């Protein structure tokens, strides 16, 4: 077995496998770095920018940066935590997130992060953009009001023939998730559920399927997000 890489996060001594990215390595060492676009096991996107950490005075996304020997990483410092809160707030104002009416409430990672970072009201003015809901697929509803464009569905989900069901469309502030209605029609119920579970928010919702779990008993209803890695002090 190859030798482990030694590094520190906020002074804590940590060890990583060679080639491992900082985010996964931190998780393995009981250090919580928040992220919305990252999913372990798929190629990092580095797009939500929440996992920014400071290395040698520079901000780097933890998900895209491989750990190197002797790296001293700053994570839980006011500058970075402040930036993360700001990014969470940006996501709230650029979309239309009405938690009480959302099927994903309690299982939503954006909502959970807002709680963990104790967001009160976003510092930025709400934009209340007009977004389309795409219900053309017989299996799934794409609610773009809630989509945070993390690309998780694009990066990790294909149909059984390996074809992409999801892709980006347009660019910039008009960027949106596009769904291949025809291909998605052939998805099994399990696959449709998987698509919904991949989504950190409530942008991908199954059709013809109600709530399994009552609100109040869901994943982040009792403990903050990331508590399995590191609890909030």
């Amino acid at each position: 077995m190859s030798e482990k890489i030694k590094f520190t996060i906020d002074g804590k001594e940590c060890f990583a496998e060679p080639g491992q990215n900082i985010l996964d390595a931190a998780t393995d060492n009981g250090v919580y770095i928040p992220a919305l676009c990252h999913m372990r096991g798929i190629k990092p996107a580095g797009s939500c920018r929440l996992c920014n950490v400071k290395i040698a005075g520079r901000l780097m996304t933890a998900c895209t940066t491989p750990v190197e020997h002797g790296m001293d990483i700053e994570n839980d410092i006011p500058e970075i935590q402040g930036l993360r809160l700001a990014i969470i707030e940006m996501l709230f104002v650029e979309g239309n997130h009405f938690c009480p009416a959302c099927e994903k409430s309690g299982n939503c990672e954006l909502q959970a992060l807002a709680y963990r970072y104790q967001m009160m009201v976003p510092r930025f003015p709400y934009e209340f953009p007009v977004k389309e809901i795409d219900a053309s697929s017989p299996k799934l509803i794409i609610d773009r009001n809630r989509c945070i464009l993390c690309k998780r569905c694009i990066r990790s989900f294909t149909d059984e023939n390996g074809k992409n069901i999801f892709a980006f469309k347009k660019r910039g502030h008009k960027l949106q998730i596009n769904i291949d209605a025809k291909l998605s029609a052939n998805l099994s119920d399990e696959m449709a559920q998987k698509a919904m579970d991949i989504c950190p928010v409530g942008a991908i919702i199954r059709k013809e399927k109600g709530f399994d779990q009552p609100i109040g008993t869901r994943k982040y209803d009792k403990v903050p997000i990331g508590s399995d890695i590191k609890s909030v002090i």
Partner: protein
Amino acid sequence: MSTYVKNIIDKYNNDETRLMDILIDIQSEIGYIPNEAVEQISQSLNISIVDVEQTLTFYHFFSQKPIGDYVVYLNNSVVANMMGRSEVAKTFEEEVGCGFNNVSDDGKIGLYSTACIGMSDQEPAAIINGCVFTKLSPARVKDIVADMRAGKNVKEMFNEYGDGQNNSELIKSMVFNNIRKRGEVLFSDYENGAALKKVVTMTQDEVIEEVKTSYIRGRGGAGFPTGLKWDFCRKSEGEIRYLICNADEGEPGTFKERVILTELPKMLFEGMAIAGYALDAKNGVLYLRSEYTYLKDYLENIIQELRETNQLGENIAGKQGFDFDIRIQFGAGAYVCGEESALIESAEGKRGEPRNRPPFPVQKGYMQQPTVVNNAETLCSVVKILLKGADWYTMMGTRESSGTKLISVSGDCRYPGVYEIEWGLRIRDMLEMVGAEDIQAVQVGGPSGTCIGERSFKRTICYEDFPTGGSMMIIDNKRNLLKDVVKHFMDFFIEESCGSCVPCRALTVILKNKLQKILDGNGVMNDLTELKKWCNMMKQANRCGLGQTAANPILTTLENFPEEYEKLINKDIDFNSGFDLSAAVGESCEAVGRTPNL
């Protein structure tokens, strides 16, 4: 299955990485990309429809619906507006009978706006069916619209031809070079092929060493030492290496590449071949912005000529095993593709989203192989460096900035155009040289650069002081800096962001709205504090150069022109939401027919 779409797809061997070319050809053949074509592409390339659409919808010049037999793309850059764009636009609308972003009722003429088209020295300008029309006036627009109504061929609508090669058979455009100052490196005597002949007598290491010693740095703006980049690439492991020339030139106010491509294409291709030799790359790609499609036939003809004279192709310059060839990859309207990794994505037929680093392009670039991306000006300079030696080159310029630099000068000055200057020129001297008076500000390096005022005119153009890709927009005192320039630049970034990174996608809009609040007279001091804080977030938190610099128009004017902001601020109050209650309830007031006492 439509035959012409099939023919186009066949031409590119059903290759997914040539999706850009397939879409470009269909767009130019039928004027838009119909859904049936999208379906056909998806079937032939065995990819999803959404895969085709993700590339298609990323680029400004692709359209999914008909946009007119004649498609007018009128430049909407800051400089175009300074030079009278609004009158020209109004005349277009009146004569055509529809507003912008629309097609006339008969489907004949479409009017669209577009970002800087590389003609800042001859604005207002427009691209009509691929042909460039410069120095437009309301009177000219009337003639052009009449010609379109009469069904004339676009090339018959020109009323003059430009200078130099612009007037040659394969270009025949209205564009003028406006070369105002010739320097020692680029616009000096050039014998085609001489450097190549010399290079093949050298080893690859010697070539790279010479480039390193010359200390030439990337001329696109970032300034990475070229020799070092070549060295990194050659030392990277890969099956094959690629050399890409970046001629995307999307930074508003820049047009030097246009002149290089028009007047020095042979020097450029020779530079690419030299780089190919040094890197052991057999394939070169010239990534050219869509706006310069009018140069396509001319450039392809020159590439063919160079193949015939053994300067491209196999065993170049008689050297066994020195094989190198070039293909042209056109973009389709996306500023971000000037960023090297976005450019690579685009050249692979994808959306122009910048990649994460590491790996760097020199490690894993085009087709995941070691790739060097060099600016066109850099590659031209390399030709002279190898011919005349690094020592000759380093005698010019300053300590850390050797050689010469092309600057593109536009805006409020008497002599807009391209100047080949030695690094180390003071801004003040530059302004005098170009005939600028009554100057309020100079936008150095385009929107992503710095807006400076009088106080900074003593600074010099060089890497150690004021590095720049070369765009110099001069803004005189009669302009409203915040409204006419800064806000415009923010709109530009909002439009051109790829949208991947949250701060770049969301904060550009938030910042622009904040600026608008101030321009509307609703600003308080705290707005300025917040503006500054939020701009700094952009700088830190984004992945690529576009996102990191997208707040610069606000940030650098806050720093250099604070009084422009402060004079709009109401200092007597601490808070103003900027919310206009009567406007918000206007519609319902009208519906019920009474006005509350607000």
